[in-house]
């Protein structure tokens, strides 16, 4: 009933606190596949441990977060959907940091890139579920490198004189330190 589960919960939190100041998690259980076998009168429901394929060793195993371990620190963008899709849920939201193991700045950068990829339409299958969802929507306009959400951006009615124009932001400032392979400066305000 309620009391034993509360106690168990309290015990777990106690032990979790005792496991050190860092994010040392308790030993994780592997994924199991539920297999149901019916033989005449008896039905056996078994959870078989799935043997995961060996994950390839990252080039820099001494890194703290997956990005540092794979030497991708300033090298990804909103276009690298194969990398970004590993950090999102099936409805498009980001996975929490304590699960993925990213450091704070990389988590924010990946979140910004995922938002830009969603707005560019690069992740068409990671949409939130709409039960009745009116399918014919108003025509979607193509866009890319969108920093702000579509609904929150307001028109700039007066841009101002040439020497102090109100800028239209493009891209995201968190990605300012990305590696550039051309010597042209990247403009973040158009």
């Amino acid at each position, binding site marked *: 009933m309620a009391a034993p589960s509360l106690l168990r919960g309290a015990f777990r939190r106690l032990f979790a606190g005792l496991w050190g100041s860092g994010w040392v998690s308790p030993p994780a259980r592997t994924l199991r596949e539920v297999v149901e076998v019916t033989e005449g009168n008896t039905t056996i429901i078994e959870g078989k441990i799935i043997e995961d394929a060996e994950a390839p060793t990252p080039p820099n195993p001494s890194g703290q977060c997956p990005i540092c371990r794979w030497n991708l620190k300033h090298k990804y963008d909103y276009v690298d959907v194969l990398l970004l899709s*590993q*950090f999102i849920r099936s409805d498009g939201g980001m996975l929490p940091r304590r699960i993925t193991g*990213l450091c704070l700045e990389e988590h924010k950068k990946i979140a910004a890139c995922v938002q830009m990829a969603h707005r560019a339409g690069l992740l068409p299958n990671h949409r939130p579920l709409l039960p009745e969802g009116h399918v014919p929507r108003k025509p979607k*306009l*193509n*866009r890319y490198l969108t920093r702000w959400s579509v609904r929150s951006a307001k*028109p700039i009615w007066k841009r101002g004189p040439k020497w102090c124009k109100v800028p239209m932001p493009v891209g995201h400032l968190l990605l300012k330190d990305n590696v550039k392979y051309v010597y042209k400066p990247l403009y973040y305000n158009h």
Partner: protein
Amino acid sequence: MASYTKAAQQWATFARAWYLLDAKMQPPGKIAAVTVRRLEGRHKPIYHALNDCGDHVVIINTRHIAFSGNKWEQKVYSSHTGYPGGFKQVTATQLHLKDPTAIVKLTIYRMLPKNLLRRTLMQRLHLFPEDVIPEDIEKNLLQEIPQPHIVPRRLDEYTPEEIAAFPRVWTP
């Protein structure tokens, strides 16, 4: 050069060519920069401002242009009818829904040199919202201009082999 007659080479040098440009998923500014260069004739070694050596450019799929940033909501196109109270301001979204070729047309018009040749060069520009082109224009086309902006691949455009080949960066 080697085996052409002088007449044929002169014809080929001074003829007016027709170029095709696909504006799908392209920013209108970059489209305009490439188009203006061809319309003026600056891509030819025989260029001179008085030479009238520009070419025709046909732009298709103007309905599917892509603005970077939040310009669809933030960019405002203004005009005045000349009458009092006639100041009209329209966002890029509204203008595009009203007329899908207007944004590209205005961008190119404003990028051309501000002289009397501008109107003639605009007459050599042909804009189409979809990829349906009249037959007589289609017969004239010589070459396609490469797209200025590299269109990123969507997640469902990657093959399952490529997705499997990409390593898992973290394990749960």
